[in-house]
């Protein structure tokens, strides 16, 4: 690897306002061999990883981008405002369904969630993490949705394949997620024991 090449690559990524793909870098630097560029890129990523400075070179959304390390969030937000990347539980749930099941229609999402999702979908569209892919070839031609490049960028994913599989997620879920709720009031109204309560079981 020529150190000049790695500096050239670094300067290009550094001034790019969104993630820039390896292919794109190779195209720009057509006087260098693609293999050279690739090698320089991975060495660069390793260098910044090892250095441990305020920012790192991450592989995201099919490309490369310099980003601050999450460790320094509290310092960075002292001088720049965190953009309102606030996602509610229902937004995240809907986004997960779109991400794992795309292309998907609103009706399919609503069937899975059991609630109306129009408002949530609209706000995900406005945040540009979800996009309209087109229309489904079934009666009524409903719109179909999928995730966008911004989704990968915001959630720091290299590509859709790097989403944890649903199986992996289930394995994580050894700890119950329901402890947030203290007690439901209705459970307390039960006067009779459960056993004798249910004639039909």
């Amino acid at each position, binding site marked *: 690897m020529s150190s000049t090449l790695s500096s050239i690559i670094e300067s290009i990524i550094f001034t790019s306002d969104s993630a820039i793909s390896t292919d794109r870098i190779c195209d720009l630097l057509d006087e260098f061999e693609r293999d050279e560029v690739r090698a320089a890129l991975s060495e660069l990523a390793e260098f910044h990883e090892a250095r441990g400075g305020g920012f790192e070179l991450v592989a995201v959304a099919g490309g490369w981008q310099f980003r601050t390390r999450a460790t320094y969030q509290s310092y960075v937000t002292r001088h720049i405002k965190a953009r309102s990347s606030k996602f509610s539980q*229902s937004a995240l*749930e809907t986004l997960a369904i779109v991400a794992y099941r795309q292309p998907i229609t609103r009706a399919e999402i609503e069937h899975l969630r059991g609630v109306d999702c129009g408002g949530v979908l609209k706000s995900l569209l406005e945040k540009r993490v979800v996009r309209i892919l087109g229309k489904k070839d079934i009666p009524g031609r409903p719109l179909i949705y999928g995730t966008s490049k911004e989704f990968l960028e915001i959630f720091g994913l290299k590509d859709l394949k790097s989403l944890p599989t649903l199986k992996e997620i289930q394995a994580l879920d050894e700890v119950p997620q329901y402890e947030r709720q203290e007690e439901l009031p209705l459970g307390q109204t039960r006067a009779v024991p459960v056993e004798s309560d249910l004639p039909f079981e």
Partner: protein
Amino acid sequence: MSRSEARHFIEDAAPLLDGFHEQYSVHLDKFDGPMDLLLHLIKKNELDIYDISIAVITRQYLDYIKLMKDLNLEVAGDFLVMAATLLHIKSRQLLPLDDQEEAEDEEADPRAELVRRLLEYQQYKEAGMVIGARALLGREVFARAVTEPFLLAAQNEEGPLEVNLFELVDAFRVLLIRIPAESFHDVAPGDSLSIADCINEILSLLQEKETVQFDDLVRDELTRERIIVTFLALLELCRLKLIRIFQGNRHGSIWFVPAVTQTLSEE
């Protein structure tokens, strides 16, 4: 009544209710729809999701809806649909299937479809929590806001990727919001600022620096008048093609570059 209002209502009116809610604080807003509520009930009753007691779940589910009604909460249609589904499953369980039907149809258990949906919903609910826990761009991690003079010049040549008027006006709007309200009605003092003065000021600033930020121009004197005059001066300068305007990113700082000297220095 909204759900958060309802919670206050419950807290305030607890003693008035028939003694049955009073000792419990209700967090109705925790349930993200009927599936979420059902999952909670299953967990709470320590039921096996593959072998739910429909009777228990249905009764508690309906109790919950009844509570919402008692509290004058608007019960979303989605919750009623699920109530109907539960009652339907329950009624089907009451009807004995004949042997033939049972043998033919593996899905004979009327709960099967609901269980399938619940399991699937649970997966996505958890997937949502997992992806939400990642370090998000713009929340935990940040990218660089690229503004370097040579880049602005490069964009110049390529073709206008200048900030559009809407974004300029939006920055203006945001600035106006920041100004204290009382200065709104201030009568301008005798030595009011003219647009011509402001234009001269901007031009002389641009002779010293290669780039100037909009905020720099109004920083010392953040009044409505100052901002309006500066804004008008900028529009005029823009019209005369004496300056070019750039914005690093959406809602980022707005920059000005002298249109003429920039090209001269390039040569």
